[in-house]
């Protein structure tokens, strides 16, 4: 057991625990109101929003999985970089509109907006359901990050005793989320990012010194991993796979409830716009972190006998922790591992808050107890956030990890099906709520079927004419969804024009 690392790790963890509870008193608001508990009172300025959304999108799982993909699959894993290049123009153009209309109408979730815009509670239910379903496996995967670093420090992670550290971490997380709401992850995100930046800078400096420069590092990478495979004749091969994975992931990202929560908690549409320009700093860090996968190859951690057991248990996900342990003194290993574990707490907290908001607003208040008071609503959300975290914990303990990975892949395919209702809905009222609902259903079922039929590989070998165009399943299903939504909207609007009311006004959007 690595005692020094464990002590540093535990101290940092205790510090953020204290911070999480202390956050309830920060920019004090009435936590019996959902927008106070679940959106921090929409009061976060440019600086805090930067940390919050950064902590929200660039999760612990990302820090483990992206380098692990580079380590295992090579250049393909770098799609995370073009993906994050494309998200910010979208954030700049589209989401300030959502902020504005949500601010004026008191919306807390994207389903709230859909409900108001199309006056169709079933479409709102579909959007809410999709958001909750897509986020659940994401929360579960955050636990994997914590599990890997705890295991790497030599703490037993099998059996009930082995599950204990994770349970403790999640009880702490659940408690401060319950008492402080979104203020807790917003505050902790600052600590998390400082730790992550320090770690990444240390790696980026230390590794080239260790292996003798970036040239030597890349020279150690097998040719097959260094670049994407050149496509065969009559095929776009890995090129279209790479491009569509990046584009589809980018379109899906800001539709997740936790992303929407991050956006809506900011204090103005301008804060959202400003953040579109400054959040790319995280993408640079992500790019450098992706290269850590290659550094692990160059340093040769997989061949080191002391890490054989770790790779056996956690496969490629162990490549990053192994690299840290191979290069850094024990105390700094503790810092780096704490960065990853705290990096899991922040998004897990925001995700559970976002799904709790969605359940409470769009399922509980809409369908189960329309007469509930604002205080009931907030209370319900707090309880649901506990249930969701318990569910994620059970998920990780009771089911094979592979299920969480499959569901997370499906989550992306599902959440992108809300593009027509949410993103197109921000620009046009001409679409019909029922048409959107049918389009959503077809996209959802088609995408799920394609992923399953494809043995859970995200890229489908699409044939256009005589040419093969491997494409991310989510995009194919989305195109079908949009076509159906548009065509049926024309039909429905012709049959019964202007029957549904729009509860929003044009000036709400700017």
């Amino acid at each position: 057991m690595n005692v020094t690392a464990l002590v540093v790790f535990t101290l940092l963890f205790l510090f953020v625990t204290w911070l999480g509870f202390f956050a309830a008193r920060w920019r004090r608001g009435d936590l019996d109101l959902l927008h106070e508990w679940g959106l921090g009172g929409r009061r976060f300025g440019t600086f805090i929003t930067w940390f919050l959304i950064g902590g929200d999108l660039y999760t612990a799982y990302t820090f483990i999985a992206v380098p692990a993909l580079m380590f295992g699959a090579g250049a393909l894993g770098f799609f995370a970089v073009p993906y994050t290049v494309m998200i910010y123009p979208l954030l700049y153009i589209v989401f300030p509109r959502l902020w504005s209309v949500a601010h004026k109408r008191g919306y807390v979730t994207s389903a709230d907006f859909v409900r108001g815009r199309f006056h169709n509670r079933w479409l709102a239910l579909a959007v809410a359901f999709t958001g909750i379903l897509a986020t659940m496996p994401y929360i579960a995967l955050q636990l994997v990050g914590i599990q890997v670093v705890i295991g790497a420090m030599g703490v037993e992670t099998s059996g009930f005793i082995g599950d204990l550290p994770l349970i403790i971490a999640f009880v702490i997380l659940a408690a401060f989320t319950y008492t402080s709401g979104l203020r807790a992850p917003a505050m902790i995100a600052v600590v998390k990012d400082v730790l992550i930046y320090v770690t990444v800078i240390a790696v980026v400096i230390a590794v080239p010194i260790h292996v003798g420069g970036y040239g030597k590092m890349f020279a150690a990478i097998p040719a097959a991993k260094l670049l994407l495979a050149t496509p065969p004749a009559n095929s776009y091969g890995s090129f279209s796979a790479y491009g569509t994975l990046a584009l589809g992931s980018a379109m899906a990202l800001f539709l997740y409830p936790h992303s929407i929560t991050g956006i809506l908690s900011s204090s103005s549409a301008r804060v959202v716009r400003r953040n579109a320009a400054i959040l790319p700093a995280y993408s640079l860090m992500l790019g450098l972190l992706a290269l850590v996968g290659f550094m692990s190859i160059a340093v040769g951690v997989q061949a080191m006998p002391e890490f054989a057991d770790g790779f056996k248990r956690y496969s490629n996900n162990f490549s990053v922790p192994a690299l840290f342990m191979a290069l850094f003194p024990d105390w700094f290993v503790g810092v780096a591992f704490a960065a990853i574990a705290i990096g899991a707490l922040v998004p897990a907290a925001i995700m559970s808050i976002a799904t709790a908001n969605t359940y409470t607003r769009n399922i509980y208040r809409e369908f189960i107890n329309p007469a509930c008071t604002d205080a009931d609503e907030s209370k319900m959300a707090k309880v649901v956030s506990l249930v969701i975290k318990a569910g994620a914990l059970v998920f990780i303990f009771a089911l094979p990890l592979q299920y969480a990975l499959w569901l997370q892949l499906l989550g992306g395919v599902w959440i992108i099906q809300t593009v027509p209702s949410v993103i197109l809905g921000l620009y046009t009222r001409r679409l019909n709520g029922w048409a959107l609902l049918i389009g959503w259903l077809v996209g959802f079922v088609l995408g799920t079927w394609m992923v399953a039929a494809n043995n859970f590989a995200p890229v489908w070998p699409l044939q256009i004419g005589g040419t093969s165009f491997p494409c991310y399943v989510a995009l194919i299903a989305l195109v079908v969804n949009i076509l159906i939504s548009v065509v049926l909207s024309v039909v429905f609007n012709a049959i019964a024009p202007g029957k549904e009311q729009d509860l929003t006004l044009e000036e709400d959007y700017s």
Partner: protein
Amino acid sequence: MSDSNPEHRPVRPVIWARLLLILPFIAMLWVSSYNSATPEWGGIPFFYWYQLVWVIISAVIIAFVYQLER
């Protein structure tokens, strides 16, 4: 909600500037243009540094559009 807060003033979109925001999409989706090891930069293959440079270019474009529309 009546608002005198300057942070809540509506933004006037500058359309020609917003069209610049398409550039990152074109650059990143044109994969064959950058799937190459050369030219290297400080030992880093083109594929890697080129995409990282686009992170910066797109951030600069967004900041530029923001300044124009302020």
